[in-house]
Every structure is written in C-alpha cells, then in structure tokens.
C-alpha cells in the first residue's frame, strides 16, 4: 500500500508541472500580463517596458515559469492587479468555495444515490422512466439557466431564500447554490448508481444472500450497495475538482465571493498571477482527489489490494 502511494505520487509530479506550465503559457502567451495593470486603457510604451522589466517579463518564458514555480514553493503566489497578495485572495475565497462544494457533494450523495438505488431496483417501472427522463432534462438545461430561474422564483418572486449570498457565505445560504452547482452531477450520479445497481442485482452473491434468507434491507445495504458504489465513488471523487473549477457560473449567479469569482475577475482583468495561482491550486486538488479515490477502492472492495 505504502509503495503504491509513493508510485502514484511520483506519477502525479510530471502531470502537476505539465498542467501548471500549460496554464502559465496560456495566460502569458495568449494574454498580455501587464494589460490589467493600467485599468481599461492600454499602458503607454515606456510604462509597459518598465513594468515588464520589474516583473521579469522581458526574460524568456521558461525562465519566467521556473521563477514563478520557485516562488510558489516558498508560498509566494505573487500579487493580483489591485496589489493584493494572491495568497490573501485565496485564504478568503477557498473556504467559501469549499463550503459550496461540500453542500454540492452532499446533495450528490444523498439525493443522487437514493434516486439511483430506487430506480435501479425498479428498472422499467414508471418511477424509473420518470426519474431517467428527469435526469436527462436536468443534464440538458444549462446550469446558468437553472440557477437564474431558481434565483428568480425562490429568491425574488416567493422570497424563500436570499437571492444573493452574504459575504460570510454560511452553510444555510449556500443550500440552493449548492443544489444548482450539483444539479448536472446529481443526474449523472443517479444514472450511474442505477446502472450499477441494476447490473449487480443479478449477480450470484445477491442471489446467495437472498437464498440465505437475509432481510431485503440487509441484502441491499450490505451486499448490493457496497459493490455497486465503487464506480459512483470514483465519479464523485473526480467531481470534487470539477465542481470547484465549475463553480464560476454558480458563484456569478448568486454573487458568492469564492474561487470562481476571483478567477472570473482575474481572467477579465488579465491578472496573470491570480489566474495561474488559483488554477495551480485547483489542479493540485484535482490530482489529490483522484489519488484518494484510488485508495478508497481498496477500502470499498477488499478484492483490490495494492502492492
């Protein structure tokens, strides 16, 4: 097990550097890193040259990347366009987005898996057909439309929730935004659980468990569910990174000042340091989440042993 973890960590290193280099190149080569520093107007040539020298932008790109990465490893992510430290922005933004992601994941687990189990056990019945059709509709409606409509109906027309989230973003205000963020993945979790349950419910070990006279509840929770949840866990695990990166739309709708908000500002204002810094952390989250999922495999499925 220990060896496996080390091998996986070693495999992660090139991917981490590759992904950060890619985003670094995308931001620096395709965009203009100093454009954001002069407001909406273009910098005059003398100021531009001065700024480029100051930030080391006159050096070759590979040298800039190495310098940047060197700084990152000492905890220095640089400064955003308005002079704030990127690490300051991060410490304000990440807790909010992590809370939002937790709410979303909980919705995926509670609603997604329950619906999946219910439909998987009743394949071809009306419940199954209706839920399947609903999941397709949820997947098809873009998240920003779902979000805007829920905000309009629940927040503005009926006044059930606050239309926008307050700066502190406590859990109770993040319920509906979390549901919106989770919506598409929720539908996928439902479908995945359903397929998995339906496939496994015909397995020999389920028949044996039923033949032994175990109560239905026990067969489902102890035998069927534990085996069927492996692909679902994989999906939810890899979804953590996707949710945090995709929160940009939800955060914009409900005015949540999290990672998505900072990235949106960073991209629009061409704040190189903000974008590269936040994406670097997101890539790291994504890689670690994938590793944890692989290790969870062994816990869920005793047949899998890592040497």
């Amino acid at each position: 097990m220990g060896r496996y973890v080390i091998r996986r960590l070693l495999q992660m290193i090139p991917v981490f550097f590759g992904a950060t280099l890619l985003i670094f190149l995308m931001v620096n080569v395709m965009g203009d890193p100093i454009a954001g520093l002069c407001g909406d107007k273009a910098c005059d040539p003398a100021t531009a040259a001065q700024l480029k020298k100051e930030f080391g932008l006159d050096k070759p790109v590979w040298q800039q990347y190495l310098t940047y990465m060197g700084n990152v490893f000492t905890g220095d992510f640089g400064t955003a366009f308005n002079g704030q430290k990127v690490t300051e922005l991060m410490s304000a933004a990440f807790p909010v987005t992590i809370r939002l992601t937790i709410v979303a994941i909980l919705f995926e687990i509670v609603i997604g898996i329950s619906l999946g189990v219910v439909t998987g056990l009743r394949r071809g019945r009306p419940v199954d057909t209706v839920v399947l059709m609903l999941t397709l509709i949820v997947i098809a409606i873009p998240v920003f439309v779902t979000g805007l409509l829920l905000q309009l109906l629940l927040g503005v027309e009926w006044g059930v929730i606050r239309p926008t989230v307050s700066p502190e973003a406590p859990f109770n205000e993040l319920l509906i935004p979390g549901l919106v963020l989770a919506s598409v993945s929720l539908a996928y979790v439902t479908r995945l659980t359903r397929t998995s349950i339906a496939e496994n419910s015909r397995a020999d070990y389920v028949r044996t468990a039923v033949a032994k006279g175990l109560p239905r509840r026990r067969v489902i929770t102890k035998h069927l569910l534990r085996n069927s949840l492996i692909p679902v866990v994989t999906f939810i695990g890899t979804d953590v990174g996707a949710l945090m990166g995709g929160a940009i739309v939800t955060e914009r709708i409900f005015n949540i000042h999290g990672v998505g908000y900072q990235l949106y500002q960073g991209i629009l204002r061409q704040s190189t340091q903000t974008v590269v810094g936040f994406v670097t952390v997101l890539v790291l989250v994504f890689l670690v989440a994938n590793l944890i999922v692989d290790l969870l495999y062994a816990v869920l499925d005793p047949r899998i042993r890592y040497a």
Partner: protein
Amino acid sequence: MPDMTKTAPEAEAIEDALAPPAVKAEKARSLWGDAWADLRRNPYFVVSSVLILVLLVIAAFPGWFTSASPTTGDLVHHYLGKPELSKVGSAEWLGYDVQGRSVYARLIHGTRASIIVGISVTLLVTVIGGLIGMIAGYFGGWIDALLSGFITNVFFGIPFLLGSMVVLQSFTSRSVWVVSLALAFLGWTQIARVMRGAVLTIKQADYVHAAKALGASTSRILFRHILPNAMAPVIVVATISLGVFISAEATLSYLGLGLSSPAISWGVDISGGIAQIRTAQHIMLYPSIMLSITVLAFIMLGEAVRNALDPKMR
C-alpha cells in the same frame, strides 16, 4: 489507400483473400445491423433524430421559418409587450427584445451558430482525441506514457470552462470558429481516453494478429482493422458531447466570453435577456428552452445509440 497498396501488394492480396475480411464484414454487419434494428424501435431515438433533423433544416434555411429580420429592431415594438402566443410563426409570436427585435426571428437565426459550434467542436475533438487515443493505445510503452499518461492528463487537469475562458479572453472579436477552437483545445481528452480503452482491447483480437503476421503496414492495421471496430464507443461519446459543447458555448456567452455581438446565438440572447429577467422573462426564456431542447436531443440520441450498441443493456 493507394500508397499502401504499392508498399506491400502481395501481402495485402493474401490478407484480403484469406479469412478475416469475410468474417469481419459479417460480424460488423451484425453489430451495426442489430443496433439499427434496436434503434428503430426506440422512441427516444425516433424523437431525438426527428428533432435534430428539424434543427438542421432550421440552421440551413432559417428563411423558411421566418421572414422577420433578426438584426433590425424597431422600438415601436416595446419589449414589455406580452408575447402573442396565438400568432404562431409571426414576428410578434414570442415577443420582442430590448432593441425591438423579434425574439422568434432571433431564435430561428440563432440556431445556425449553436449547431455549427456543436458540430465543429465535435469533429475537431473526435479527430484530435481519436488519433491521440489510438496511437497511445496501439503502440503502448513510452508512447502511451507520454500521450495518455502525460499529455492527456495535463489537458484533463485544467478545468474545461476556465481554460476556454482564458483562451477566449485574448480574442476581442469572437466568431463561431474561434469559440469552436477554444472549446476543442481542452475538450478532446474524453474521446482520447475512450478511444485508447477501445484500442487496448481490440489490438488483442485475432484478426489484428493475423494482419500483423501477414505483414500489413501499421497504418493499414490502424485504419482498416482497428479504427472501424473502435468507433462504436467513440460515436456514443461524441454524440453526447455535441450537446454538451452547445451548452458550453451558451455558458461562455453568459460569462461574456462566448460569441460577440453581431453574431446571433441563443447564448448571446439569453445573456442579453438576463437584465430584463424580472420584467420580461420571455426574452431569455425562449432561447433557453430552444437551447435545452437541442442539447436534450443530442444527449437522447447518444443514450439511444449506447443502449443499442451495448449488449449488456438488453
């Protein structure tokens, strides 16, 4: 494949004369023939393909559906005027937007942009991802480690929407082609993984070993023997992705980084209508419905094809 016939004509003649092609052709017919028989009876398939056909016709000939102009507005038509739902197909059917332009005319003329983005991104990612996945899966070893273990994972690690935004930010005017390229830039990884997985299984098949033993060239093995047999899962993923890419284009427009204004698209109209969401919902509602129906049609088609091709689902 003219150049290959020149390189190893005898080997190929023997190969063609011997067992594999006849057996393969029959097998291929039965898989696709079976799938087709299954699809024709599937209501999801029938409904989605009719929808897609209608959308393609609208995209190709918008003039057949409305005579109103999508670009000239007349402020005589105030956007607060309620849509006249009884006048189906007329300019005032679905109401007017803030500039006094017919929402219905823009809906019809906006179809083309969404369909073009969806199809061109899907073609691009299928070619790029398909080639990378096929080469990685077939050659294995360090080529696989580089293409699949490194490059695919690197592109997969960057959040799709964020990456596309960064790319699009550097363009001041964004046409459908620019948006398509930006979406394809990070969007090819899923197809590459699916293709690699399929190739890994197929390269163990007897007919591939036979072709190799008979001295067929690598490109012949790849394109004549492996590719046709690996296409099924790729087609399914590509069909579903087509819907997802159409939705992504609209999302980028909502974030202000999709198509830019002289272009007519549902995404542009939805994001334009958000400012009036409290007073005149029809401006954003109808493009949203049209967009969702289109995405739904492609996802349903993909699901139907998947069920038809996957014997486990029977």
